[in-house]
């Protein structure tokens, strides 16, 4: 049945209003990505200095440090899951959660326990709805994490790692996050945060210069590694934030495009209905006039 003209116009108006909102959200997401990228760039010098320092120490000690030692048989793992606070970002959060589920399944199959730590309201509700306990949860900063916030997340993870297994500590920490490859492509992946794997690459700073350490190489390493871990966590959170914004922009762009398509279809239907109405009116008038003139002729 063809909807009435009034109904069509109303629907057209509501779709246009929705389109305005989705377009605004698309633009907001786009401008926030630029900001997220600036934040990532701004934290680059710190990362470089830390890497440089870690490499300098690595060359001087035998690398026996609790944060670096791998256990042969990890019994319990912490899994940090980075989701978004809000929806309207396409499949962003569900992709992360799906990968996390798969990881947890693998861990369980290997006979290991896991403790979920979740960032972002989407992930938190996912777990709460299923009545699964969370070891830690944070929300409210999924699209623009500051270092202070990342620091809190990292502190919780480091605490869990330092605790002995018997007291509920973990032997391993993994993160499930979304890597920002480009504006068009983001990739969910799993990475291990702890124990650390120190990557030795010959960057611009060669470790050829002999460093002195104060108070000692071990003490420097002790202070340095936690900072390194915190910085890694901050890096993952920033990557996740950029990916979230990119997914949101993409989702909002297709919503805007779909709304445009709907508006065009609705406009066509409206025009058709209007034409039909006019045609009908003319037919009625003509019919009426014909009937009148027919009656007149009869009377004469």
């Amino acid at each position: 049945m063809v909807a009435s003209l009034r109904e069509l116009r109303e629907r057209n108006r509501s779709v246009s209003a929705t389109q305005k909102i989705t377009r605004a959200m698309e633009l907001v997401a786009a401008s926030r990505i630029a900001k997220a990228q600036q934040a990532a760039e701004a934290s680059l010098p710190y990362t470089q200095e830390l890497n440089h320092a870690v490499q300098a120490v690595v060359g001087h000690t035998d690398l026996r440090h609790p944060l670096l030692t791998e256990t042969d048989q990890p019994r319990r793992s912490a899994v940090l899951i980075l989701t978004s606070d809000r929806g309207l970002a396409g499949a962003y959060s569900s992709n992360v959660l799906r990968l996390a589920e798969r990881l947890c399944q693998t861990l369980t199959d290997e006979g290991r326990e896991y403790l979920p730590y979740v960032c972002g309201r989407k992930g938190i509700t996912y777990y709460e709805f299923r009545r699964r306990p969370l070891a830690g949860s944070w929300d409210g900063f999924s699209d623009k994490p500051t270092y202070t916030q990342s620091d809190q997340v990292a502190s919780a993870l480091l605490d869990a790692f330092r605790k002995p297994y018997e007291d509920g500590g973990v032997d391993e920490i993994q993160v499930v996050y979304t890597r920002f490859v480009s504006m068009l492509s983001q990739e969910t992946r799993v990475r291990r945060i702890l124990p650390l794997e120190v990557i030795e690459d010959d960057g611009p700073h060669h470790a050829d210069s002999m460093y002195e350490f104060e108070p000692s190489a071990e003490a420097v390493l002790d202070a340095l590694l936690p900072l390194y871990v915190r910085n890694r966590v901050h890096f993952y959170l920033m990557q996740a934030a950029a990916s979230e914004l990119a997914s949101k922009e993409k989702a909002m762009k297709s919503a805007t495009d779909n709304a445009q398509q709907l508006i065009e279809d609705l406009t066509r239907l409206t025009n058709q209905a209007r034409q039909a109405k006019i045609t009908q009116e003319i037919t009625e008038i003509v019919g009426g006039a014909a009937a009148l003139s027919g009656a007149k002729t009869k009377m004469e």
Partner: protein
Amino acid sequence: MAASFQVDVVAADRMVWTGQAVEIIAVTTDGEVGILAGHIPLIATLAPGSAEIMTDDGRREVVAVEGGFLSVGVDRTAIISPYAQLASELSVDQAQKDLREVQAAMDDGDNSIETLRRYHRATAQVKAATRNNHD
């Protein structure tokens, strides 16, 4: 004039200060150190407090550090501290207020690592801000 060298002060989320300096005075966990151009490569852990940079144009920059590192390389030197801040960006009053708040929390029996770190940060900021005012 003394030889100058490149100094970067980096915090976790930004480059706080960068420029040429003739001397750095910092407090490491072992005590105060002065760094001049041509110092041997050194990595030292910093104690919460302030570090001073004498710039090559004769100014003095005070930086609040709540830990972190001093890394002296062959060609450049860096003060690496996640929450490094220039004292000129801080106000003494604000810093003291923060310190009082943290102290109150600690008096109430809050002994978490988080609070302890906030305490270190607040002390460092008060020290740096006060020192900056005594120019």
